[in-house]
């Protein structure tokens, strides 16, 4: 009986420890706390993003999609995609690329009959996205709910699907997607290594991994200003706008906890990606990491 007791005590002591902001917690506790944070912020997520970053997060996300430069026919998996910001930008981008393609095609159709031209119009109109598709995957029901509502409100329906899933254990087959993105999500994953391995698994050979995340500011003066803003202003914004100080305190702490650029690059390489590189935005406040599966 004593041995059994010791065994179970050892089991308790062995629960892997990790961090939640500046607190130390078990992995299970962390997953639960983070779930609750996003459950609580979901409704005001977009408003808060605009307030905290003074709208600049929109530019960061635009840059991510431009860097991706998707062509029509691309199959994108957007993980931790919650309220759909990347997915909607992807759809817009692919639509405009497609429109330009169509315009080019029409320029060359000078000698066709009216019937032939109108037929090609019909065919092209029905594929305004050109078979491109985006799957938005998120672990949090509330965030997905807000995302779906937004999609309906903004008129996005074609080529878009919403899946409840965990970045550490994706509900998809191997070699499925052309591009995998995770924007401001990987910081909230408890086992980043597992998420990166899953990203590698579900990408097709030749597929691209793109990660947009808060990172490390090396300039000392800027870093102090950034810290001042993060710790003094952001939780206050959280309290005033969303009535939720604690979630935004967690946000700024979790940013400080996250690996800086080079460390994340090494982790991505460890997962098997090649040609891993990163691009700093706003002096490292945010960075885009990219890698390829060969």
């Amino acid at each position, binding site marked *: 009986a004593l041995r059994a007791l010791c065994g179970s005590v050892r089991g308790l002591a062995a629960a892997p420890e990790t*961090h939640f902001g*500046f*607190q*130390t917690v078990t992995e299970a506790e962390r997953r639960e706390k983070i779930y609750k944070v996003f459950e609580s912020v979901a409704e005001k997520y977009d408003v808060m993003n605009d307030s905290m970053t003074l709208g600049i997060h929109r530019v960061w996300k635009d840059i991510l999609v431009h860097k991706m430069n998707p062509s029509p026919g691309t199959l994108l998996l957007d993980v931790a995609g919650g309220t759909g910001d990347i997915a909607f930008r992807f759809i817009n981008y692919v639509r405009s690329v497609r429109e330009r393609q169509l315009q080019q095609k029409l320029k060359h159709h000078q000698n066709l009959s009216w019937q032939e031209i109108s037929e090609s119009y019909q065919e092209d109109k029905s594929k305004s996205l050109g078979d491109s598709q985006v799957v938005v995957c998120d672990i949090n029901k509330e965030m997905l709910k807000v995302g779906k509502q937004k999609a309906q409100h903004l008129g996005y329906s074609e080529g878009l699907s919403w899946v409840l899933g965990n970045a550490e254990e994706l509900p998809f087959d191997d070699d499925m997607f052309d591009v995998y993105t995770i924007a401001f999500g990987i910081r909230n994953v408890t086992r980043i290594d597992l998420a990166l391995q899953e990203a590698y698994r579900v990408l097709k050979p030749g597929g691209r991994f793109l990660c947009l995340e808060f990172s*490390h500011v090396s300039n000392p003066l800027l*870093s102090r200003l950034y*810290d001042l803003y993060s*710790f*003094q*202003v952001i*939780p*206050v*914004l959280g*309290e*005033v*706008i969303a*009535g939720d*100080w*604690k979630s935004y305190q967690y946000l700024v702490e979790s940013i*400080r*906890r*996250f*690996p*800086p650029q080079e*460390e994340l690059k090494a982790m991505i390489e460890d997962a098997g990606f090649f040609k891993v590189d990163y691009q700093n935005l706003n002096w490292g406040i945010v960075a885009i990491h990219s890698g390829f599966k060969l």
Partner: protein
Amino acid sequence: GRAWLSHAEPWTRDGRREEEEEEEEGCYQLYPGHIPTSPLQKALLAAGSAFMGLSDPSRHDMVAVLGETTGCLALPNLRDKMKHHPEGYRILQERPRIRLSTLDMARLRGLPGGTLGREYVRFLEDNKVSPDTRMPPKFVDDEELAYVIQRYREVHDLMHTLLGMPTNMLGEVVVKWFEAIQTGLPMCVLGAAFGPVRLSARKLQVLATDLVPWAIRSGRNASCILNVYYEQRWEQAVESLREEIGILPPP
């Protein structure tokens, strides 16, 4: 409370330990729900909550936050008034709380009409409010003062009862004027000054000519409302309590 941990983590910012950041905010919780804040954060909270409270009247939490972040002079004042009064002193020692779980609603309802208990319950039912919706304090950096502001919030409904004011905008403004004189809390002063903005001209007239002067006179005349142990006076007649405190008869 929370413990800030200072063991080295592989990903901490180079050359900066986490403690540097935490020290600005204070390292410990003084009471459940307490969020320590730096002076800058308090200033930002005060400004933000004032703005938000005015632009979105449904944000009662913003009014509460405003009260906490601006009460640094008024609250110690109130606490001292309580300390120097026998009944107030007892309240500070015993820390009674007014909530549905501690009140015997059935007994209060059974009391004769005109008593504090009966009229309080009638007020709660007529206006469909509950004492449990008062926000617990978060940003007061002293555990005793946190109780004082909590007590002030929980006694607010009793103020309505004693003043005979309903919970519509007009009634709330009148109570705010009374409370502003009584407590000196900047939040009450602001509420009293800006509350009328949303009232119609007719109501404003009644407010200006009858209600506010009466509220001010009563506020001045009355002894400190936090020095009354209401929970021991449910059977007392409202009239008699009014006289005892010094609240003038309503117009």
